């Protein structure tokens, strides 16, 4: 049991600033939101289209600031209590039946959750609470005190667990549920909007530094054109673009093929990497076909 009373070392000012990393391009506003959260030691809530690097943010913040990372992935059945600790009553019951010595210390049956692990970390950790909207509607409310005071009470052992260092908490949401106001008020908020073409070029550059300039330009043009196709159910996002470019490089596709001035070659090669939905693929093919028909006349 490492549940010892510790003083929260909260007032210590961090002079490290997050400015993106060699594998992650952060925009000015994102950097500022992260730094505000780091300085004020409050959680930051990150929303945005799927595939724009919400989860990756926590990993990169931990890397950039050289801090340990604890990841708590939320499922629809996750309860707030599981992040703190779980009391394995069944194991204790079984041990009591078998006459095991361990049964006398209830602490043997307390299993630490991710929040406790983060609280117990010797260095200031980064705690990722991923896809908080997946859980029940009341889930964020159940964590209010823990995130505010960075401490909780273990009833079974009558102990107060306080964070050694207030963790930098990154929370991501996909907007499947509205989050309660009381919870939102305690967070900084950042909406990762879809990157513009310049930012996107920087992002691709970070991932594929050796990419030929003209291939990148043509690929981006083709990519933004696909995104503009009206009525797509799932627009391709950054992660799909990166996958697609990886394929283009692997197949050694020349940049000229991507140029869509020629109507007859308007379908970008390997577009299966960009469109993940069968209906979208059909829609796209149909539009290109119509376009091609118009081009002939």
């Amino acid at each position, binding site marked *: 049991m490492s549940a010892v009373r510790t003083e929260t070392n909260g007032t210590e000012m961090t002079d490290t600033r997050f400015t993106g990393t060699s594998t992650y391009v952060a925009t000015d506003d994102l950097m500022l939101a992260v730094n*505000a959260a780091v300085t004020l030691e409050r959680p930051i809530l990150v929303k945005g289209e799927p595939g724009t690097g919400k989860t990756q943010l926590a990993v990169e913040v931990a890397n950039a600031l050289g801090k340990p990372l604890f990841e708590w992935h939320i499922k629809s059945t996750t309860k707030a209590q599981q992040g703190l600790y779980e009391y394995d009553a069944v194991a204790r019951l079984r041990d009591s039946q078998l006459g095991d010595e361990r049964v006398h210390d209830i602490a043997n049956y307390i299993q630490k959750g991710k929040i406790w692990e983060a609280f117990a970390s010797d260095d200031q950790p980064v705690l990722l609470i991923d896809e908080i909207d997946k859980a029940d509607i009341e889930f964020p409310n159940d964590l209010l005190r823990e995130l505010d005071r960075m401490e909780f009470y273990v009833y079974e052992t009558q102990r107060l667990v306080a964070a050694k260092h207030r963790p930098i908490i990154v929370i991501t949401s996909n*907007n499947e549920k509205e989050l309660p106001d009381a919870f939102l008020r305690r967070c*900084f908020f950042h909406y990762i909007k879809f990157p513009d073409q310049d930012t996107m070029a920087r992002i691709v550059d970070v991932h594929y530094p050796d990419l030929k300039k003209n291939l990148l330009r043509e690929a981006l043009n083709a990519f933004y054109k696909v995104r503009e196709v009206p009525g797509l159910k799932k627009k391709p996002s950054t992660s799909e673009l990166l996958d697609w470019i990886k394929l283009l490089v692997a197949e050694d596709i020349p940049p000229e093929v991507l140029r869509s001035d020629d109507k007859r070659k308007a379908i970008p090669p390997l577009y299966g990497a960009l469109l993940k939905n069968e209906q979208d693929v059909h829609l796209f093919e149909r539009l290109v076909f119509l376009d091609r028909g118009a081009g002939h006349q």
Partner: protein
Amino acid sequence: MLIPFFYMLREGGMNTSITELLTLLEAMKRGVAGTSVDDFYYLARATLVKDESQLDRFDRIFAAYFRGVEDSLGDLFEELPEDWLLKQAELLLSEEERARIEALGGFEELMKALRERLEEQDERHEGGSKWIGTAGTSPFGAYGYNPEGVRIGQHGSRHRSAVKVWDRREYRNLDDSVELGTRNIKVALRRLRKFAREGAADQLDLEDTIDKTARNAGLLDIRMVPERHNAVKVLLCLDIGGSMDDHVRICEELFSAASSEFKHLEYFYFHNFIYESLWKDNRRRHSERVPTLDITHKYGADYKLIFIGDATMSPYEIVYAGGSVEHWNEEPGAVWIKRLLNTYHKAIWLNPEPRERWDFTPSIKLTREIMDDRMFPLTISGLDDGIKALH
């Protein structure tokens, strides 16, 4: 400090709280935003806005409140080399102004006052107070020139004009007051959920186990319960064809949202109004019909009934036998819908037509009367009200 801005946000319909304002002030005190207006904007946005649908509104209010501020205060807090300051001032002042300055205690004095004032502002900013709030206080206005005239800090256009950032209004299409997207519908429909324990017992019921074990003199007696599942049952009846064609997309969205939301969801189609039969597959609407009575017999009274239709038709189609446009109906539609309503007490009608038009369409008035006024517009707020009526 920033209080008028705070009230302006609230008047603009944002539910920013005092806690958030205090957080912003604390962040400024700790120097998070540095000295640029851009950073201040980003910080204010991250602190005061908690939903992307509010971002556009925030941008507009921010622009309205701070318009003009950034021009005069842009880089006020940069280190000012005194020589440069003097030179600039000299260049910009006419003979006449110089004479007036002399009268006021000389140029040196004035520059000293200017510096003091600037430093004071800098300190205030450090202290998290009113560097923006002092928008209009150009301290030297009385002397015939102002910091803008001296162009403090504005050497070249190195500093990207901050206003552009919020004037771009990049978040316009996220504003939720107009769009009824699948996601919004899902959130609204989610309020209909009701949890109940049904099905296989696969979870340990700790309390019951302890209780039973204690009664069993300590001999372990494990009790299991089924997991909690969403137990809401819904019958969805969608109007299709004719005047509903305009609304097909919105209905499709509602349907796609609804289908993943409930465990028991049954849907049927009708055309204009409910008669003796409905159908499940629109392509085979004439060959495969389900008698309405079978529906009431098959699905229990605990189902909630939702009609989606514009209820826009000739009133004859509702009240007269044989009024249907598609076939000869032996009994009027009003009788059939009442049969359904007698079985399913929890029922609403969602209407994609704008509410203003309801009073001018006799068939909508008629349908509303039959539904006991439980007709709601197919908007987010209408859906919300409807869901409340279903509870």
